[in-house]
C-alpha cells in the first residue's frame, strides 16, 4: 500500500524532528480561539464542536487556548461550546493580535501542554500564526482543511485539503511530528449547541511579555466598512456582458436580501470595487443561490461559485461555457430579464403581504 511505503521510508530516513514527539504528547485536541474586541470568531467555536466529536470517539480532552486583554468572560462560552479546559492568557500586550506577541505565548503554552493536535481557523490571523509556529516547532501543518478525522488506534489526524482551485482533494497527515497542526476553513464544521451547565476548568496561563519583545504594531483596526461576500445567501454577479449596469443587479439583490459581486473585467474597468471580485483571484463564495449575468464562464471565475447550491445563468450567447456550470440557463439579455425578475419578486412580496 502506498501509504505504508511512504511511512516506512519516512521512518527509516533521518528527517527533521519536531520540538516534542509522539512519546511526549498529551492526548488532547487544542483549539485556538480567536477573538476580536472581546467577541469570539465563529470558526473557533466550530472547531470546539468538531474537536469535541473527534475527542469523544477516542476519550481525549478538548482544550481551548484563549489570548487577549480582559477577555476572561469568554472562557465560560468556550466551556459551554465543548471545552474541558480553557487556558487563558490575559495581558495588555495581547489586546491586538500580532504574531510577535501571540506567537511567543502560544508557543510557550504548546510546549507546556504538549497537545497531540492543535487547530485554528483558516482566518488571516490563524494562518499568520500557525504558519509561523509550525516552523518554530518543526511540526507538520495542513492548511485550509475541509475535513479532519482522528484515527482511533494511532492518534493520527487525517486532513482533507483541496488544491488546484478545488479540483483536487488530498489527504495529508504528519504521523511522526507533534503537534499535528491544522487550519480549517470557516463554515466547514457545524456549530454545536452551547450548554451553559457544562463543567470545565479555567487555567490562568501567564504571558511572559514586555514591550521590547514586540516590533510590530497595530495602528488601527477598521471593521464593518468592508463587505464579506462569503456569508451572503443570494448573490447576483455581473460580468463583462452587463456593460457596468450594476444598479440593476443591486435592485435584484436588494429584492432577494442578498448582495452583488462581479467577475474580473468589470472590476478592472472600474465599474465595481475589487473587494467584490468572485473567483480564483478574488472571493470564493458558497451562497444558496448565485444569479450570474453576462458572464462567459472562464474557469478562474467558476471556482468562485462552484459550491453554490443553485446557479442561475443569464447570457445572450447560447454557447457560453457558463451554462455548463448552471442549474437554470436563460439565453437572453440580462438588461431585460433582471428588471423583470426584480418586478416579479417585488410584486410577489406585495401580494403575499
Amino acid at each position, binding site marked *: 500500500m502506498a501509504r505504508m511505503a*511512504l511511512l516506512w521510508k519516512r521512518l527509516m530516513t533521518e528527517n527533521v524532528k519536531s520540538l516534542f514527539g509522539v512519546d511526549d504528547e498529551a492526548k488532547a485536541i487544542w483549539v485556538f480561539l480567536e477573538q476580536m474586541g472581546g467577541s469570539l470568531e465563529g470558526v473557533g467555536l466550530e472547531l470546539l464542536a468538531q474537536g469535541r466529536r473527534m475527542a469523544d470517539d477516542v476519550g481525549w480532552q478538548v482544550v481551548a487556548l484563549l489570548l487577549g486583554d480582559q477577555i476572561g468572560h469568554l472562557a465560560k462560552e468556550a466551556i459551554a461550546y465543548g471545552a474541558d479546559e480553557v487556558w487563558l492568557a490575559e495581558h495588555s500586550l495581547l489586546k491586538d493580535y500580532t504574531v510577535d506577541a501571540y506567537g511567543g505565548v502560544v508557543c510557550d503554552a504548546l510546549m507546556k501542554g504538549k497537545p497531540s493536535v492543535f487547530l485554528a481557523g483558516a482566518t488571516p490571523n490563524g494562518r499568520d500564526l500557525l504558519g509561523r509556529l509550525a516552523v518554530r516547532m518543526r511540526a507538520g501543518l495542513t492548511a485550509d482543511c475541509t475535513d479532519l478525522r482522528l484515527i482511533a488506534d494511532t492518534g493520527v489526524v*487525517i486532513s482533507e485539503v483541496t488544491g488546484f482551485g478545488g479540483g483536487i482533494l*488530498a*489527504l495529508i497527515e504528519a504521523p511522526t511530528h507533534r503537534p499535528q497542526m491544522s487550519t480549517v476553513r470557516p463554515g466547514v464544521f457545524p456549530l454545536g449547541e452551547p450548554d451553559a451547565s457544562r463543567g470545565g476548568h479555567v487555567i490562568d496561563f501567564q504571558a511572559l511579555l514586555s514591550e521590547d519583545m514586540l516590533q510590530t504594531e497595530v495602528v488601527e483596526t477598521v471593521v464593518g466598512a468592508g463587505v464579506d461576500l462569503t456569508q451572503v445567501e443570494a448573490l447576483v454577479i455581473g460580468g463583462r456582458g452587463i456593460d457596468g449596469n450594476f444598479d440593476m443587479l443591486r435592485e435584484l439583490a436588494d429584492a432577494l436580501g442578498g448582495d452583488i459581486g462581479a467577475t474580473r473585467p468589470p472590476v478592472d474597468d472600474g465599474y465595481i470595487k475589487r473587494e467584490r471580485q468572485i473567483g480564483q483571484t478574488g472571493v470564493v463564495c458558497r451562497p444558496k443561490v448565485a444569479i450570474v449575468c453576462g458572464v462567459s464562464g472562464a474557469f478562474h471565475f467558476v471556482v468562485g461559485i462552484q459550491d453554490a447550491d443553485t446557479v442561475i445563468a443569464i447570457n445572450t450567447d447560447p454557447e457560453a461555457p457558463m451554462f*455548463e456550470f448552471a442549474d437554470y440557463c436563460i439565453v437572453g439579455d440580462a438588461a431585460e430579464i433582471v428588471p423583470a425578475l426584480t418586478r416579479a419578486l417585488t410584486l410577489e412580496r406585495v401580494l403575499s403581504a
Partner: protein
Amino acid sequence: MPELKIVVCMKVVPKPEEVGVDTETMRLDRENARSEMNPPDMNALEMALDFKDRYGGSVDILSMGPPFFSDILPVGLAMGANHIYLLSDRGFGGADTLATTYTLAQGIRKIGDVDLIFCGEESSDGATGQVPPGIAEWLNINQITMVNRLDYDAKRKMVRGQREIPGGHQIVDTPLPSVISVATASNEPRFMDYRIKPSAFEDDRITTWAAKDMDVDPGLIGEPGSPTIVSGLDQAPSRERRMEFIGGTPEDIALKLAEILEDRL
C-alpha cells in the same frame, strides 16, 4: 542611504483546470497541463515593482523548482524585475511547506542584505498560504500578511501595511527587514514591457543554485525536511448541474425564476 533590496518569491504552477489525478498511482497528472505563473504571485510582483517605482532599489525574483521554471519566470523580468534566482535540485523535491520555506529562506540569506520579501497570499496548486510566515520565522524577521497596500517610511526604516481582515482592515507598522504577503487581487499586475522583453529571456539574467551551492542542512530540505505526507489523492467530485434551459418572454422567465428562488432561499 543604501537602496532598498527587494526579493519576490514566485512559483510556476500548472493551470488548475488542466490537472488531473491518476487514481491508480495516486499521483497528480501534470503532464498534460500547461504552466503559468501562480496568479497571486503576480500581485506580489506588482506590489514590489510599484515599491521600486516609488522608492527606488532593486527587485529580484526567487523561485524553487525544476529547471523548466526558467522558461516562465522571465515574464517577471519583462515586467521590470532585475534578476532571477532559481533554486533547483532533485534534493529539494517532495518538500512540504516546512522544507520549502527553509530552502527559500536559505536562498534569501545567500542573496544577502534583503530588506523586503514579497510573496503571493497562496499558491493556486497547494493553496496553503503558509509560506510567507514560514520564511519570516526561518529568517527570524517580521511579517505582515494579507496586505493590499504598503508604504515605506525611509527615515524610520519601517513599512506600513494595510492588512485585510474579515469585514475590514488593519493598519500595521513593522520595521525592516520584513516579509509581506500580498492579498490576492489587491492590484492589477502590469503588462510586460515590450522594450525590455527581448533581453528578459537571455541566460545571464538567471542564476541557478543547486543544494551544493547553498548552505543547506540535508535533513531540512526535500522529503527529509517535510513532516507531512500525502496519503491520498483524488479528483474532487464535480458538482452535477441540471443545465435546464428556460425559455419564453422576459416576463415568463421572471415568473419561473421567482418560483425557483422562493423555493431555494
